[in-house]
């Protein structure tokens, strides 16, 4: 399992990093923390690089390194990396340019397999997409952006599960809302939900939404298998059935204390691009963390 945690600034990324590292811990995953800096106009990119070289000769780090250092300090304060590494401190000299427009440093992890810190510059969706493709990450964890189309672009173009950390607070969230249907792939979604529930020590609320309750289509073999898996995991759970439009019902049930874990849309990319999808509607409407499993 490989997890990519995207952070943006020291001021707003603490919840993302905290929740991200908890999830990484739960999956015992190889973890990469990435900061994507602003795109520099191509007209000036070489000159800016030259100026940054000059800044380094006066003991100034290039922009973004301070964010990685802040992430390193978070990892050391919470003892998430190797004790020897904590003692050495932030390995500024080991932050190497790998020739692919990114700087990176490897850290031996304790609670997870390894932690990499990566610095890139450019359009956030393009850079994350590239990083996910190259690194073959399973989950990308990031904070919610104020940009209008960001949720759409993340779901549409990033080829991994997406965990958008929105208004996360350790104390506040005591439930996972798991919308369930009979589509294939629900087992994977349930497994993710169980891992997160175990990591955060919270319970799962299974929600099944039927367009027509009398059809009873949901009680299929797949559905029962998923419920059985959750029961056996030891996580406390409750089941609720609702009738109506799926997205609307999920949004209604997503209170401020629930983390949503749901399956990505299985529509074709073209249809999804023009029509949108249930996960996108939920993501846009809800102000809680949401994990969309692909």
């Amino acid at each position, binding site marked *: 399992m490989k997890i990519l945690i995207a952070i943006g600034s020291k001021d707003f990324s603490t919840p993302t990093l905290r929740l991200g590292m908890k999830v990484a811990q739960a999956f015992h995953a190889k973890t990469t923390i990435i900061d994507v800096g602003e795109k520099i106009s*191509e*007209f*000036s990119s070489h*000159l800016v690089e030259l100026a940054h070289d000059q800044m380094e000769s*006066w003991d100034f780090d290039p922009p973004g390194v301070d964010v990685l250092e802040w992430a390193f300090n978070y990892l050391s304060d919470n003892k998430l990396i190797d004790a020897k590494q904590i003692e050495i401190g932030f390995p500024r000299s080991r932050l190497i340019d790998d020739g692919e427009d990114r700087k990176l440093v490897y850290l031996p992890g304790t609670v997870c397999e390894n932690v990499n810190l990566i610095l890139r510059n450019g359009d956030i969706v393009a850079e994350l997409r590239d990083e996910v493709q190259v690194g073959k990450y399973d989950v990308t964890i990031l904070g919610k952006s104020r940009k209008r189309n960001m949720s759409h672009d993340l779901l549409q173009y990033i080829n991994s599960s997406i965990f958008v950390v929105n208004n996360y607070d350790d104390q506040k969230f005591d439930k996972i809302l798991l919308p369930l249907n009979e589509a294939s792939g629900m087992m994977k979604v349930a497994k993710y939900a169980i891992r997160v529930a175990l990591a955060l020590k919270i319970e799962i609320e299974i929600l099944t939404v039927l367009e027509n309750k009398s059809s009873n289509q949901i009680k299929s073999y797949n559905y029962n298998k998923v419920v059985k898996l959750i029961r056996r995991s030891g996580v406390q759970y409750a089941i609720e059935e609702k009738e109506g439009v799926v997205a609307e019902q999920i949004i209604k049930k997503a209170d401020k204390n629930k983390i949503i874990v749901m399956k990505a849309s299985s529509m*074709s990319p*073209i249809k999804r691009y023009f029509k949108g999808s249930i996960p996108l509607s939920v993501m846009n409407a809800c102000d809680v963390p949401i994990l969309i499993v692909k």
Partner: protein
Amino acid sequence: MLGFSNISLSNFLFWATQKKWFLYALGLGVLLLSLPTPHDLQIKAKISIIILIVSLILIIKEPIPLPAVAIFILIAQIYGGVDTVDGISKSFMSDAVFFIMGSLMLAVVIIKQGWDSRIALGILKFTGNKTAGIALGFLSISAVLSSFIGEHTVAAIMLPIGMTLIRFTSANPSKVKNLSAVILFSIAYGCLIGSVGTPSGGGRNVIMINYLNQAGISISYFEWMLRVYPFIFIQIPIVSWIIMKTFKPEHRILDSSVRKLVIKVARSRAITGRNTLTVLIFILILSGWVFFSEKFGLGTIALTGVFLYLLGGFVKWSDLNKHTHWGVIILFGATISLGTSISKTGGAMWLADQLVYFLGTFMETIPFFREFVIIVVTTSMSNVLSSSATVAVLGPINLNLVPEILNIGLLTAMSSAFSYFTAVAAPACTIVYSSGMIRAKDFIKIGFRVGVISILLLIAYVNIYWPLFT
């Protein structure tokens, strides 16, 4: 769908989203091409104007790499029948492109020489320890240096000096936000103000000289300075005052930080014989620009300097190659070639006629309206494009607006330096912004004030000072 996998469909959609501005530009180009050609416009001129519009969108929005835009400009002109392959190739490589190439390479040599610490000492020697004096010192030194060696070089040299002074004042950047803005904007705006002072101050000046030469007008290095340099001295105190008033610094006196900076500089490596030699070579280049540029061209002399630095082993080719953005050089070559084509085909004249048709009455009746229009249009474009690209595309059009070609050429070059409003418009602003110590909205806040004042000052300057030359 049609045998394509979901992944390939998703890849296609991502490509289309990333390249949407390319697709819009292309669509607009096709639409304009299909419209009937005005009776007074040649088809070649129409095509060159359409290529200009499409390229402007591509340069501003950067949906494709800049070298790809350059290639597009070149091949579109050939396929569109604007000129022959030989004609396009000839206009592609000019002294202006030599100069841009040489100036980008010289920047690498100069920045690596460690002159920064000496410059820092020089500034602090004559500014004292008051913030206002230091800001004025940073702005003046940046302006004077950039007038000779180019804004981007000076910004890269001055930035760490300014940042060190800020760090010595407070280790917590949030406690010295205004001081950071004062020092860093003094550097960036100083570089912009100075960059018009001499032909070697920026690529845009050489591009304009290129167009003036094509129009049969020659201007020497010294004559340019005589007409333009006084404007720098007018702007320096006024802009410094505006910066100080806009961002009231947290500290009025920086005595301890100045002391620390002096100590740091004193501890830096001593000047070696090789460093002195690099200065001497640069003085040689500068003398060449002043005395021989009319005969040999500024670009040739800049490249001679690069040759001498390489010959003496002052810089490695690998360093030059790494830090010189060849794509930008190719792009400038291509935009100059397009500018030349627009001029040759009569497109520039037609565009100028349209402007006169719509605004001619105002230009004749309202005093200074003509200068105002040229300055505002050039300034607006240079804030979203780049100053050199602005001059490359606007130059031929502006030169067709009025009979006083030299004045209009200088006015265009000068107003293209008013890239005060955005962090991305000029390399000096981008370099300073990349420090992370100032915000994009600071550029709007200060840029508007400095921009408006500079426009008014320039209108007054050209109407009071330049008539003395006739």
